[in-house]
């Protein structure tokens, strides 16, 4: 019995190693998903953009697993690539439409990859997304009085747009990244994304999610409050206070706070790169590991 257990553990370990070897080595520093509208009418199109930054230079990112849709239909998707000095930005834009009034749900987009720094297989995932779908707007009196000509014109334009969208959909279908259901082979060795290592009631977890989702001044202020609280400091404290308070005890917290201040008070033009660096430090901080300088 004991031998069987050992054998099973050995097989599992070998499988994990084999899976890890099949995964790409990617240094993923940002993965976010957001919709251009929070509320849409049923049948009206809206866009969801998935943003990924990797430290490597890559022509494509086929490893990105798109979200599963509930109460929404995909009309098309497109991947855009922007090479940067510090890696590559990918923007995957999905054109969707809500099916029924209610809520449309998108599961997190994710990438399974081996972290080059640690050699571990990791699942990097975005946040889930929910969009409220309202009933389609009925024609009001003014619209009715516009006459049959406008209606016919709209019908023709709508028809042309629908044909174009169908064509785009068919073309993209051949090039689209994998869906979860289409994935073949054994599942990867999954380590949850770093924020998941924090307890669900940890305010840092919410603050990180907020920065990942929005990255604006308000989300940065929330993160600063949480991090300064970790240093035992309240509102009105500064980086120098934090260094005095925890400098030697918790250098990773100081590094993370320094990066946070850079994002919050730095030039707007440098914010995307500074945010990527901050998220990397936050993941390490949340995981309790020392960031490699």
């Amino acid at each position, binding site marked *: 019995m004991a031998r069987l257990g050992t054998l099973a553990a050995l097989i599992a370990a070998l499988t994990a190693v084999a899976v890890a070897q099949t995964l790409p080595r990617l240094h993923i520093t940002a993965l976010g998903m957001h919709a251009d509208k929070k509320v849409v009418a049923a049948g009206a199109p809206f866009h969801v953009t998935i943003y990924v930054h990797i430290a490597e230079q890559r022509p494509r990112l086929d490893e990105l697993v798109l979200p599963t849709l509930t109460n929404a239909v995909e009309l098309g998707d497109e991947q855009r690539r922007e090479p940067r000095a510090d890696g590559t930005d990918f923007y995957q834009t999905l054109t969707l439409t809500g099916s029924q009034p209610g809520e449309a749900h998108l599961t997190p987009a994710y990438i399974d990859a081996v972290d080059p720094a640690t050699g571990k297989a990791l699942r990097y995932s975005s946040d889930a997304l929910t969009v409220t779908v309202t009933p389609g707007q009925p024609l009001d009196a003014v619209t009715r009085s516009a006459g049959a000509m406008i209606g016919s014109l709209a019908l023709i334009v709508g028809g042309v747009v629908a044909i174009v969208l169908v064509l785009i959909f068919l073309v993209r279908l051949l090039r689209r990244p994998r869906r979860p259901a289409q994935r073949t082979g054994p599942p990867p060795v999954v380590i949850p994304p770093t924020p998941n290592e924090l307890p669900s009631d940890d305010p840092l977890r919410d603050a990180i999610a907020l920065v990942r989702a929005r990255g604006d001044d308000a989300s940065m202020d929330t993160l600063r409050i949480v991090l300064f609280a970790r240093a035992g400091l309240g*509102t*009105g*404290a*500064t*980086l*120098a206070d934090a260094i005095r308070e925890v400098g030697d005890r918790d250098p990773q917290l100081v590094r993370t706070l320094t990066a946070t*201040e*850079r994002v*919050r*008070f*730095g*030039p707007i033009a*440098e914010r995307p790169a500074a945010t990527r660096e901050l998220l990397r430090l936050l993941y390490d901080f949340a995981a309790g590991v020392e960031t490699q300088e």
Partner: protein
Amino acid sequence: MTPAAVRDALHRTIVGQQEVVESLVLALVADGHVLLEGMPGVAKTLACRALAAAVGGAFKRVQFTPDLLPSDIVGTRIFDQHAGEFVTVRGPIFTNVLLADEINRAPAKVQSALLEGMQERRATIGPETLPFPRPFAVLATMNPYDADGTYALPLAQLDRFLLNVRVAYPSREDELTIVDRFGAADPQFVSNVASLEDVQRWQREAREVHLDDRLRDYAVDIVRASRGARYIASGASPRAALALAILARAHAYLDGRAFALPDDVRTLAPSVLRHRVVFDHRLGIDGADTEEVVRGIVASVAAP
């Protein structure tokens, strides 16, 4: 070349006095004037000379006395018998670094002659208005403890000084080093570690440092808090908020950052405020400390 080279050069001449050295380099990068207050013999003058030498700039020293005239600083017009016309003779203010030693020993007329120069960086002599060489900085010294035969500086002039630095006595170790180093030989200045062009480039780059709106608000709030604060008869002017913003940028630049942080504002606020506020009579009655009052004003405003 970087400002750190100037800082190192000053430290090789001056023993200790970390804050003085930092403040002089900061003011140089911020393109401002400095008021140094302290007892005689604490290296105020030496620091100013060392700064001018380090950047290869022209240095002039004026010992302010009660009989000093404005023309002794700014210059005058004299009749040239050979040319048969009046010619302008420029005063010592036409320099890169002007040391106004014991500035409070000259009457108001002379002090005000400095005003145009400090603010406009030019001087008017007769019909001519002449610009100063760039960079230009007035480094003034004052002994606050020896009030006999002195004239209080008008607020308008004090406001022109970007920074006020309190020069303290050196530590015992530093004092021993001073005796060893300068007991047998004159001070040796480290010259030309940077050029005047370098200084002007630093000044340009420092002005481009990003200052977030919330830091601007923070600077303004600190200055406004000085008005009506306890022991304060008259608060700082809007020029103080401007000075704080300029200095925060320069401080961040010296720290190698392209953006300022709340610490830049908070650290420098006392040096910006202490010579711009007027303390009331209750300060003396209660035996309160001016420095504590200024630091209290800064601490009363929460950093963003």
